[in-house]
């Protein structure tokens, strides 16, 4: 290597200082490098988490500075778990989770499988399909309310064009029977490409020789799909499901813009419900307990799932 400015600096550094710098053990450097990130995460994630746990045992209300803060034990938890309305929001969330994941896996996998036929220009079209997931859910969700408007909305018009139903006769966001599907449709539109990309990575990781061997064994295409393609893509697919599951459990922006939880409480997902409790009703203590319950739920489900995933991978 030729003498770069750094070499010159290195040479010009007094031996004592150089030894000092070089003397920083790798371990010290590692800590210097890691510490700021860990510190930030502690300050913005862990410290608040502990604070939330503490608040969850109180009757604190953030909009009432003058009020006495009392520890009320597990009262908040009892209230939440005993509240039938909260179980309804859990049901709404489960419906949303199940159907978005089911549709996204189905469509996403199919698309990946088709794209993997390597037709001409597939990477450009892949990019176009990916566009929705790169965009702001709040901004796009807000615009979807326009597409969903009875009569003038594009969505209703297209549906009526193909089905003959009067476009002003149904309101995707306003009707109890349709609203849960309206949010599933938009989420699927937005996030199918994510599942698709992961599946594509899975499909591309399967070496050709396996198929070649199968073809020599005269295994039918159908059989190849079930015995090679699917099992080899499964770990990827499960990972995609995990990511989508966690993301949609946290779902807030898109649905808030679309329905705001309505009509009634039909699409009031847990995050929306939590926002009402925490930042509209300002029942901070109660909402903290709620947040902890949600966190434990996601964390628990995710851990069980990851165990299952690892088993599949080992197979």
């Amino acid at each position, binding site marked *: 290597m030729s003498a770069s400015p750094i070499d010159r600096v290195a040479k010009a550094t007094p031996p004592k200082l150089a030894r000092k710098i070089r003397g920083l053990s790798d371990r010290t450097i590692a800590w210097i490098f890691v510490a700021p990130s860990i510190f930030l995460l502690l300050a913005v994630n862990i410290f608040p988490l502990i604070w939330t746990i503490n608040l969850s045992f109180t009757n604190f209300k953030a909009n009432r500075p003058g009020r006495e803060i009392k520890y009320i034990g597990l009262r908040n938890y009892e209230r939440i778990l005993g509240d039938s309305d909260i179980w309804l929001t859990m049901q709404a969330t489960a419906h949303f989770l199940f159907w978005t994941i089911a549709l996204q896996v189905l469509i996403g996998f199919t698309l990946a499988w088709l794209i993997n036929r390597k037709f001409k220009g597939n990477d450009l079209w892949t990019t176009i399909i990916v566009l929705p997931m790169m965009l702001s859910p709040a901004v796009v969700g807000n615009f979807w309310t*326009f597409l969903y408007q009875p009569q003038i909305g594009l969505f209703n018009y297209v549906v009526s064009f193909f089905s003959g139903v009067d476009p002003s006769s149904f309101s995707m966001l306003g009707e109890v029977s349709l609203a849960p599907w309206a949010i599933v449709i938009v989420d699927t539109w937005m996030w199918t490409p994510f599942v698709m990309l992961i599946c594509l990575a899975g499909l591309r990781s399967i070496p050709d020789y396996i198929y070649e061997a199968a073809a020599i064994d005269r295994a039918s295409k159908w059989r190849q799909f079930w015995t090679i393609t699917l099992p080899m893509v499964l770990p990827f697919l499960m990972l995609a499901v995990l990511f989508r599951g966690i993301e949609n459990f946290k779902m807030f922006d898109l649905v808030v813009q679309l329905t705001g939880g309505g009509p009634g409480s039909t699409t009031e997902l847990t995050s929306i419900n939590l926002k009402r409790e925490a930042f509209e009703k300002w029942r901070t203590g109660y909402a903290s307990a709620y947040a902890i319950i949600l966190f434990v739920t996601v964390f628990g489900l995710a851990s069980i799932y990851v165990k299952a995933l690892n088993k599949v991978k080992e197979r």
Partner: protein
Amino acid sequence: MSGYSITDPTRRQKWIAGTLVVLYALITIMPLLWIFMTGFKSPVDAIAYPPKVTFQPTLEGYVNLFTTRTRVAPEQLAALPPPETWYEAIVRNRNMVIAGPSRYGQRFLNSVIIGFGSTFLSVFLGTLAAYAFSRFRVPLKDDLLFFILSTRMMPPIAVAIPIFLMFRTLGLSDTHLGMILLYTAVNISLAVWLLKGFIDEIPREYEEAALIDGYTRFQAFYKVVLPQAATGIASTAIFCLVFAWNEYAFAVLLTSGNAQTAPPFIPTIIGVGGQDWPAVAAGATIFLLPVMIFTILLRKHLLRGITFGAVRK
């Protein structure tokens, strides 16, 4: 690879697959095209039934996006001197005059400041941490890595409760600094995970050679490793930027005016009586277009980045 392979799809298969994918792609960009088109429609065309595909394009939506207007009586309007600019003329057509600029420009600027500020910070800190995790034996490494990832499992609303109280105490509510720090903290987990993958791929031998040449660790890091990881850093930066750019939940809860970004603002654009859809569409177009262009231009790196966490074993 040339020649015949039994696993290659036939031309017919390719053709069918291609058609289906293109069909899906066309359906999927319809809503985006519709946003773009609505931005150039007049308010009447925007809510026409049946929805209009062909129309006389106008910049009224964009004018409405960037201005606030007041209605004046026709006789007062007639008394005014003729409009000096084309946008004033558009507004006059609706019996209104321009009262001043709207807040859109400021909100957009906030998005730029907070987006780039937090991206820079998270990539900077993330690169350091990722390097350390990749190269050194950090005690409790796996636990720390898992901890970093698990911070993304919390619903933002749940995190926002204590953050709100913290910001209130520290005076960070509705400030650029507060939002930059918050987005950095959220992004850093993604940054560390992505960057660790990229740095893992750089052979250690390069640095070791540099160390033997008399470089210190620091020098080896920024002379040898950083240039090698440049692509990885760039695509990580884009992911962080996209997140900060699109974020809504924290922004809506923790900002109200000074530091409010565009996503909570755009849905509140209203005209005289109801949402002004052409103006909303214009605002959305300006806000979404940069991301779309980025995505198309940098598709090779981005697509790799999205699946990175999944592909890594």
